[in-house]
């Protein structure tokens, strides 16, 4: 009996009684907004979703967009179906012929460079930053999607891509190229063939370099605590960081008992980099400000602890940040190495 109760208890999370709205609220609204108006993620207006097949939406939910913020969601088939029904809000799902479109990819490349590259990027990498954000002005209200993203290519049918090229997407900057620029059927087919030529087999789990690295870098200092802190501050300034007043590790937490001066946090920030990263993903504040912690143990040995920020950066699922952050993290490691010498 007890075993049955335990099995039922463990199995409960697998069952879902939630409707589409609840599933949206639980998983999607934090990025796509309460009214699906877009925010960190793209808008999910009814008019936008009306262009997408059920299969496209289901695969997008399942695989996400690797390196483009949208994570992969492990929803059940029933949950996915409910969510899609909610997003459609009564609008009938379009049906696209699943057969591939044959076209001349070289000719499509030429068309892409003439008409599409300006928004979607030379490498089909899409616009910078997040989908749509109210916190700052951008060149465009909605960041153009990355057409070379494997999540997109895996989800999208050729006929859907062609339909969007020819008819555009209402309420977005994606124009109807059939009407506005007199695209022929062949031009659209060639363009689809060029976009499709970027597809590779999708990887379920791509192991990252950070996985092999420690969560924290630990350095032994050759100096006493006071000298180590001074040298860390000087070194941070030399690496173009603005250095804040130092704090004790538990400052503000435990009154006088918390003011253990053997544990010092050195905080610093490079504002230019901060602005750049915030523009790419405003959630970056969760790892700010940059800091190192110097601790003197009972034997008088001073060690410096630096978070390996690559682990944190990878949580953003933002390829651009991962590339740019590596240099910054290497600078921080050099900065500490100089200070503890």
């Amino acid at each position: 009996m007890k075993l049955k109760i335990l099995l039922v208890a463990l199995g409960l999370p697998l069952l879902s009684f939630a409707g589409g709205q609840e599933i949206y609220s639980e998983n999607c609204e934090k990025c796509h907004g309460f009214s699906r108006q877009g925010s960190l993620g793209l808008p999910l207006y009814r008019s936008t979703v009306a262009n997408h097949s059920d299969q496209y939406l289901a695969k997008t939910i399942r695989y996400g967009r690797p390196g483009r913020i949208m994570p992969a969601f492990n929803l059940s088939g029933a949950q996915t179906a409910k969510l899609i029904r909610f997003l459609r809000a009564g609008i009938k799902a379009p049906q696209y012929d699943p057969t591939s479109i044959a076209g001349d990819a070289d000719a499509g490349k030429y068309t892409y460079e003439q008409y599409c590259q300006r928004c979607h990027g030379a490498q089909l990498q899409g616009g910078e930053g997040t989908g749509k954000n109210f916190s700052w002005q951008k060149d465009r209200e909605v960041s153009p999607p990355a057409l070379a993203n494997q999540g997109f290519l895996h989800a999208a049918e050729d006929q859907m891509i062609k339909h969007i090229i020819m008819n555009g997407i209402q309420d977005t900057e994606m124009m109807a190229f059939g009407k506005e620029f007199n695209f022929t059927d062949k031009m659209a087919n060639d363009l689809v063939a060029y976009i499709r030529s970027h597809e590779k087999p999708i990887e379920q789990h791509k192991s990252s370099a950070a996985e092999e690295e420690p969560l924290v870098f630990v350095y032994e200092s050759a100096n006493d605590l006071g000298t180590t802190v001074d040298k860390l501050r000087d070194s941070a300034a030399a690496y173009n960081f603005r250095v804040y007043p130092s704090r004790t590790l538990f400052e503000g937490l435990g009154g006088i008992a918390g003011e253990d001066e053997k544990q010092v946090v050195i905080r610093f920030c490079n504002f230019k980099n901060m602005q750049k990263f915030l523009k790419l993903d405003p959630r970056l504040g969760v790892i700010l400000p940059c800091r190192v912690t110097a601790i003197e143990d009972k034997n008088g040995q001073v060690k410096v602890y630096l978070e390996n920020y690559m682990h944190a950066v990878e949580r953003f699922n933002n390829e651009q940040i991962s590339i740019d952050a590596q240099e910054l993290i290497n600078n921080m490691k050099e900065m500490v190495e100089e200070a503890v010498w």
Partner: protein
Amino acid sequence: MVVRALALCVLMFTTSVFANHGELLIERVNAKFSYTWLALDKTIKAHNYKAAYLQRCDFALNERHYKSDKYRILFFGQYDEMKRMTDKYPELAPFIPLKITVMEEGAHSLIIATPPITLLPLVTTNEDRMTIFRWNEDMKSILNQVKSQYQ
């Protein structure tokens, strides 16, 4: 006590099976920044944590074509417990105190945190794993309660 420990173990098992540990914890709050900030401060206290200090990250943001300069980080924790943990595992120090970021998004706010459960590899005993796990559950609960105050 035994029941509580058992419940946490079951929760740890189910969470490790079904949840993606790597993802950021995020909630969208249907309130302007100042209301969210107040609610967060109160909710942290209600969870028996103490707010240590805030870090403003809004230096000249509105002068650099940002529409909002409401961007702050709140650091919080429990002294005795965090002191015990960092004495035992100094590698935890870069992650202490815990922190939650609050940013304005038009009429809404976003509250964001790194899941403390990502610190599990740094501790070695079951008791300490349960402490980290509780921090994680508390963090989720704080974010969820702030959100639910303005639904």
